[in-house]
């Protein structure tokens, strides 16, 4: 056991060096809590759910788990159905950047592996336009999606994230890339 243990120690040392010298994923740092830029609420991306959903507020961590598929049920037991806009839509880019911290390819791989391993119960549904998302969320009680805040109407409910709504100055999901990027 002596030789392999020494080799393992060397390997651990090597990986620690990698970790401590810029080895961490820069994309993940993007999603870390950083102050959002100044900007009007019209550029905010609202997280929307069905009007019948009793949830009003989510922490960012819980919201991220839902978007990652790590949580598959609402507190009332209904299954969560995540709706994503098509890759061409700017709202999707903002969500990938601010919630997932992933590229489009990483996002696809995450759900392929998640469904494959059983960790994710159901893949997200892709819809072409914000009106499609609004209609879907209206019709499916367990749905959660996102649209530009200016697209929101009375048919859906806007979730607070960490107690903040899109009109708040320090709301964290916006179309524009955050400062420093």
């Amino acid at each position, binding site marked *: *056991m002596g030789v*392999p243990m020494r*080799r*393992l120690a060397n*390997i*651990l040392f*090597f*990986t620690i060096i*990698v*970790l401590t010298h810029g*080895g*961490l*994923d*820069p*994309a*993940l740092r993007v999603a870390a809590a950083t102050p959002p830029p100044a900007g009007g609420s019209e550029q905010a991306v609202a997280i929307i759910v069905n009007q019948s959903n009793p949830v009003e507020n989510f922490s960012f*961590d819980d919201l*991220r*788990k839902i978007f990652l598929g*790590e*949580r*598959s*049920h609402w507190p009332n*037991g*209904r*299954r969560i159905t995540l709706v994503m806009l098509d890759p061409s839509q700017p709202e999707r880019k903002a969500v990938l950047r601010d919630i997932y*911290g*992933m*590229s489009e*390819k*990483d996002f*696809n*791989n*995450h759900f*392929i*592996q998640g*469904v*494959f*391993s*059983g960790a994710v*119960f*159901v893949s997200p549904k892709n819809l072409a*336009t*914000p*009106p*499609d998302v*609004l*209609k879907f969320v*209206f*019709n*499916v*009680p*367990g749905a959660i999606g996102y649209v*530009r805040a*200016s*697209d*929101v*109407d*009375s*048919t859906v409910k806007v979730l607070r994230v960490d107690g903040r709504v899109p009109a708040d100055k320090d709301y964290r999901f916006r179309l524009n890339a955050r400062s420093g990027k």
Partner: protein
Amino acid sequence: MVFLSPQLVLDLLKRLFSRARVGSIAFLLCAPMLMSEGVLAQQVDGGDADKQTIQMLIRRIDQLEARVAQLEASKAPAPAASEQAPNPRAPAPPAIETEAPAEHSEPERMDMTKTLLNIRGFGDVTLHGDTHRGDTTSFTLGQLDLFVTSDISEKFKFLSEVVFEAGDDNVFGVDLERYLLQFSPNDYFNVSAGRYHTGIGYYNTAYHHSTWLQTATGRPFLFQFEDDDGILPIHNVGVSATGMIPSGRLGLHYIAEVGNGRASSSPHAEPVQNTVDENNGKSFNLGFYFRPTGVRGLQAGVSVYHDGLRPIASPAISETIIAAHAVIVRPNFEWLNEALVIRHAPDGSTRVFDTPGFYTQVSKRFGSYRPYFRYQYVNAADAEPVFPQVRRQQGPSVGVRYDPSDSAALKLQYDHTTLRGQPATDGLSLQLGFTF
């Protein structure tokens, strides 16, 4: 007896196509009936079934007509003005606000009018050569893995992995590697019944039979499949429960499994007891792992597996497998560490056989390239009663994975493996893995 006369078919068609908007749906509903008309006409029995089918179709047509009428009515007047400022991107308010969605009204009813199957495939082709005496450099077709899922209802899901694979005799065979019905009422209790990958450690339930998903060209020694001289009960048939444990930011989860365990009566027996267990004893596996929200991609946990093995020619053996893992998996960085001990304790003997093993694997992505390194080790006693052929194996693997597209990966890997009592071997593999 009810005879499905042409007149009746015409009448149905007339009703079906009276609404252009439901024409396509109606055709789909009607087509199977038309195709089977000749067969039905020849049948003496089964009249009740025909009658029920007709009644069901008529009811379905009525429902569709009512739905079309509602939709058309809703389009006629201008949509109600939104309370908010006019917005060209905003949708019209939903037409029937009081109508409960189908999910509400019949949450557990299966839609029989469409297929529910989702299929994803994985495959690989490998060119491999090594210095082991007797081995030849060969192109090898890897497993062709068809991963099939079906969302049966809001809480039920079917999942299977059908694998086509050639053995050392170059003959292809088919294996049903996973075959599960999952019931998921909430995040705290999800239960699956069928054939599953045992929740020992991390690797076995993370990558299953896809090489494309794996960074390296193959699985670590510890997690080789049973038919590749693997030492773990990778597959099991039984019931598996998983779920979250309320623990806040710690993200604690559990896994509990009861199954037939591995076959042990003979080394030549099919290792997975798919239909008949050799004995009444069952295998148990209990594990816990956490995924803290504070460190993204981190998962760490332990599991304990226990089974009783009953070899025909030797005393019964108590098998206990204790595994621990700590992994960080992020899109651009991966660090997998797993260690386990397999303990075999023959009845009536004071000797206990402990087989320790571990592997560590690290990789980092640079654009489309991902260099990786793995070191692995397993050490079984020469007299080990269950897998005497394993002995001690250890060595490093170095490779690079290149992703030319989102669905294909080219991997080049060098392996150096030392084996107790045999010369070390060096191997080189070039593998194309893909998903489709």
